[in-house]
C-alpha cells in the first residue's frame, strides 16, 4: 500500500511539471501584456518597458521559466500585478472560500442524492423512481448560471430570505483565524456570524451542488440495482436477517464503492463550476479570482493559481484512489 502511494506521488511530478510548462507557455501566448493592461491606454513605450523590466518580462522565456520554478519551489509565488499583494496571501484567503463552497455543495449533493438514489432503486419502476430519474436528468441539464440566477431571483429578490452576494455580511468585523468562515465562527463561538455565514452559503451551495446531486442520485440508484440481486443479498435475506440490516450492511455498503469514485471525480467539475458560481454570487474564491486574472493578464496569479488548482485536483484524485482501496478490501494495489 505504502509503495503504491509513493509510486503514485512520484507519477504526479511529471504531470505537475507539464501543467506548469503548459500554463507558462499559454500565458505568454495571450495577446496583450500585464504592463499594457495595468498602465491603461496612456502608457508610453518607455513606461511599459520599465514595468516589463521590473517584473522580469523582458528576459528570454527560458530564463523566466527557470526563475519562476526556482521561486515557486521555495514557496514564493510572487506578487499579483493587479493588486500588488503577495499571491500566497491572496491564495490563503481565497482558497478556503472555494473549499468551503465546494464542501457545502458536495454535502448538499450527498445528503439528498444518496437517499434519493437509494429509495428510487428500492422502489424500482415506481412513480417515485420515475420522478427521481426525471428530476436528476433535469438537474444534469440545467446550467449552473441559469440555476444560480433563478435561485437568486426567487430567494433573494422575490422572497428576500437569503442574501444574494458575498460570503459574509460586509459590515461584520470578525476575526478569521483559519479563513474558513464557518469554522472560524464555530471556533470563536460567534453564533450570530455563523448564522450569517451559513445563510450566505445556502444559495451558492445549491447552485453548485445540483449537478453532483443528480449524478450521485443516478449512480446510487444504478449501484443499488446492481447489488440487490446478488447472491449474497439473497443469502442474507434467506437466513432471516431483518430487511433493514440487509439494506444497510449488504446492499448499501457495496453500493458505496462506485459512489466513492464518482464523488472524487466530481471535484474537477466543482472547481470548474466554482468559476460560474462565484461570478454569480460574488463569492470571493479562487474561481472568480482566476477568471479576473485572465482578463487582467495577471501572470503571477495565473501561474500560481492554476498550478495550485491542478495540484489540488491530482492530489484529491490520488486520495480517492487510496480510499477506494480502503473501502474495497478486494482491491489491493501492488
Amino acid at each position: 500500500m505504502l509503495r503504491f502511494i509513493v509510486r503514485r506521488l512520484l507519477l504526479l511530478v511529471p504531470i505537475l511539471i507539464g501543467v506548469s510548462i503548459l500554463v507558462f507557455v499559454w500565458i505568454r501566448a495571450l495577446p496583450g501584456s500585464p504592463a499594457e493592461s495595468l498602465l491603461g491606454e496612456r502608457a508610453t513605450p518607455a513606461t511599459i518597458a520599465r514595468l516589463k523590466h521590473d517584473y522580469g518580462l523582458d528576459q528570454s522565456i527560458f530564463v523566466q521559466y527557470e526563475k519562476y520554478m526556482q521561486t515557486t519551489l521555495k514557496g514564493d509565488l510572487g506578487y499579483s500585478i493587479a493588486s500588488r499583494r503577495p499571491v500566497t496571501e491572496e491564495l490563503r484567503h481565497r482558497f478556503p472560500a472555494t473549499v468551503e463552497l465546494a464542501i457545502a455543495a458536495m454535502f448538499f449533493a450527498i445528503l439528498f442524492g444518496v437517499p434519493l438514489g437509494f429509495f428510487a432503486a428500492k422502489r424500482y419502476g415506481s412513480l417515485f423512481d420515475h420522478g427521481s430519474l426525471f428530476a436528476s436528468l433535469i438537474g444534469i441539464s440545467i446550467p449552473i448560471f441559469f440555476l444560480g440566477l433563478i435561485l437568486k431571483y426567487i430567494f433573494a429578490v422575490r422572497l428576500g430570505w437569503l442574501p444574494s452576494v458575498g460570503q459574509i455580511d460586509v459590515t461584520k468585523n470578525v476575526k478569521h483565524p483559519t479563513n474558513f468562515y464557518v469554522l472560524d465562527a464555530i471556533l470563536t463561538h460567534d453564533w450570530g456570524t455563523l448564522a450569517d455565514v451559513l445563510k450566505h452559503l445556502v444559495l451558492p451551495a445549491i447552485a453548485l451542488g445540483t449537478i453532483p446531486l443528480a449524478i450521485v442520485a443516478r449512480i446510487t440508484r444504478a449501484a443499488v440495482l446492481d447489488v440487490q440481486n446478488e447472491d449474497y443479498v439473497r443469502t442474507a435475506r434467506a437466513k432471516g436477517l431483518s430487511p433493514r440490516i440487509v439494506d444497510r450492511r449488504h446492499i448499501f455498503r457495496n453500493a458505496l464503492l462506485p459512489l466513492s469514485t464518482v464523488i472524487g471525480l466530481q471535484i474537477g467539475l466543482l472547481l470548474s463550476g466554482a468559476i460560474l458560481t462565484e461570478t454569480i454570487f460574488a463569492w470571493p474564491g479562487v474561481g472568480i479570482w482566476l477568471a479576473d486574472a485572465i482578463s487582467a493578464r495577471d501572470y503571477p496569479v495565473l501561474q500560481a493559481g492554476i498550478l495550485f488548482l491542478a495540484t489540488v485536483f491530482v492530489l484529491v484524485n490520488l486520495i480517492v484512489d487510496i480510499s477506494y482501496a480502503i473501502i474495497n478490501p478486494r482491491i489491493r494495489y501492488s
Partner: protein
Amino acid sequence: MSVAELEARQVALESPTGGLWRDAWRRLRRNPAAIVGFVLVGTFVVVAVFAPLIAPYNAREPNLLALAQAGGCCPGPSWHHLFGLDQLGRDEFSRIVWGARDSLIVGLVAVSVGLSAGLVIGAIAGYAGGFVDSLLMRCMDIMLAIPGLLMAIGIVAALGPGLWQIMVAVGVVNVPIFARLLRGSVLAQKENDFVLAARSIGVPRRKILVSHIIPNAIAPVIVQGTLAMATAIIDVAGLGFLGLGASDPSTPEWGTMLTDVERYFQSAIQLAIFPGVAIVLSVLGFNLIGDGLREALDPKLRGRTERYRERRPFWWLLALRKRGAAHGAQ
C-alpha cells in the same frame, strides 16, 4: 491472394456491426425517454435550420422605438412579440430562434473537434502501446488536471473572442476525455480473437486498427459524443455568460443573453427564463438520447434492466389503468 485472404474479404464485406446497430436501434425506438430526446433535439434542429423563416423580426438590430412605444423595459409576452422584447427592444422570440442555430453549430463543431482529435490520439495510444502510449496519456493527464472551464476560458483569452475560438476551446477540453475512452476501448478489443485472426492472415497493422478494432470500439464513443453535445452547449453558453461569447455583442447567443439579465430582474424576469429554458431543453434532449443510446448499446446494462422485469415504459400508468378496470368489473 491466398484463399484465407479472399475469405477474410468476404467476411469483411458483410457489415460487421449491422447486427448490433440494428438491434440497438430497435431498442432505442422502444425507449420513450429517448423518443422524447429525439423530439426535443429534432425540434431544435428544425428551428436552427429554418431560423430565417421562423423568426418574425430582426434578431440583431436594436429597436429602441418599439421599447419606447411599449413604455420602457421590458414588455412581456404579447401577440406581436411571443416572448416580449429585450432591453434593447429586440424581439426575444427571434433571438431565441437564431440562438438555436449558433448553439447547435458551435456544439456540433466543438464536439467534432474534440472527438476526431481524441479518436486519433486514443486509437494510436491504445494500439501502439509502450512508450507512445505513456507519452500521449501523460499529456492527456496534464490537460485533465486543469479544470475544463478554466482551460476553455484560457484558450478563448489566447485566441481572442469569437464563435470559432469558442468551438476550438470547447473542443480541446473534450480531447482528453475521448482519447482516454477510445484508448480503453481499443485495449479491450485488441486481445480479441478476430484481431488475432486478421493478424495471422497478414492484414497490415493500420488496416486492423481502422477496419477491425475501431468499428468495434466505437460504441462508447458515440454515447459519449451525444452526452458531450449536451455539455458543449452548456459550456458554450457558460463562456457567453462570462462575456467571452461572440465578438459581435449583438449576436443572439443563449448564454450571452443571460449575462446582463440580473439588472432587469424586477421588471422582466422572462428575459432570464426564455434563454435559460431553451438551454435546458436542448441539453435535456441530448442527455436523453445519450442515455437511451447507452442503454441500447451496452449489453451489460441491457441485461440488468431485463433481469428485473420486462421493461415497459411508464408501466405504472398501465397498472393504474388495470386497477381501474378491475374495479369496473366488480
